[in-house]
């Protein structure tokens, strides 16, 4: 895997969400991602920053353009120092939520992107990484 570009952005307040989404859109446009795939990626990113704000009082996002096997894609890493997730399997189940949202967050987000991974240590924080390729596959 080759890293083409790298940037990071702090997400501390609700007002950071829209500029962040615009950054993601810029990256996706740069590699010529189709509108549907852009929309899926940005929506997924939006869900994840919301989680970060809601459960961890914010965090930071690493935005990367990457290339693997001749494919280019956008990889986003969401890192927070929040309370962490005790039971990831449960959190990844459709319809489960501890907050007052719809409980679509994590499983819904996973469906929108090509690659999704989550690591969490209770008391230390959560890291979610998503990757979406140019052609959406």
């Amino acid at each position, binding site marked *: 895997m080759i890293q083409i570009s790298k940037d990071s952005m702090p997400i501390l307040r*609700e*007002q950071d*969400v*829209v500029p962040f*989404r615009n950054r993601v859109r810029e990256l996706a446009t740069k590699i010529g991602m189709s*509108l*549907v795939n*852009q*929309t*899926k990626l*940005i*929506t997924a990113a*939006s*869900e994840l920053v*919301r989680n970060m704000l809601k459960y961890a009082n914010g965090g930071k996002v690493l935005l990367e353009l990457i290339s693997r096997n001749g494919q280019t894609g956008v990889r986003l890493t969401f890192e927070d120092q929040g309370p962490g997730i005790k039971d990831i399997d449960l959190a990844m189940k*459709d319809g489960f939520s501890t907050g007052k*949202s*719809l409980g*679509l*967050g994590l*499983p*819904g*987000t996973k*469906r*929108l992107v090509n690659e999704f991974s989550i690591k969490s240590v209770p008391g230390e924080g959560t890291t979610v990484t998503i990757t979406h390729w140019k052609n959406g596959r």
Partner: protein
Amino acid sequence: MDRIPILKMGPFLLVTIQVDLYDRLALNLENDLITMVSKTEAKGVLIDISAVSIVDSFMGRILGNIASMSRIMDAETVVVGMQPAVAITLVELGLTLQGVHTALNVEKGMELLQNKIGLNLLNQEEYQEPADDTDL
């Protein structure tokens, strides 16, 4: 103050969302709309989201809330102009906007609202056309 304008047109309220909604703006809109429905006795609410490129679960919840609250206040809600990419994304996300009427564009949305409340209007004198339009 950050607010999205709400236009009153006859028995309907019209809202065109031209910017990407952030939370405060969306919550203000929910509040303002319900207040307006009560104040103007509106029978229908039309929300145009043709300029909205991202609808996440929060936004979806706001749209659902507006529809349910309006219904309790005796008004129907129709969301119009959703971009195809947004529709695809919403369904994959698992958000089907149940209970929210939708139409392809403002014109079709108005038609839908008129049909929905048409029967009620016929029975209510206050919403009849002005006198100069009626046959003498």
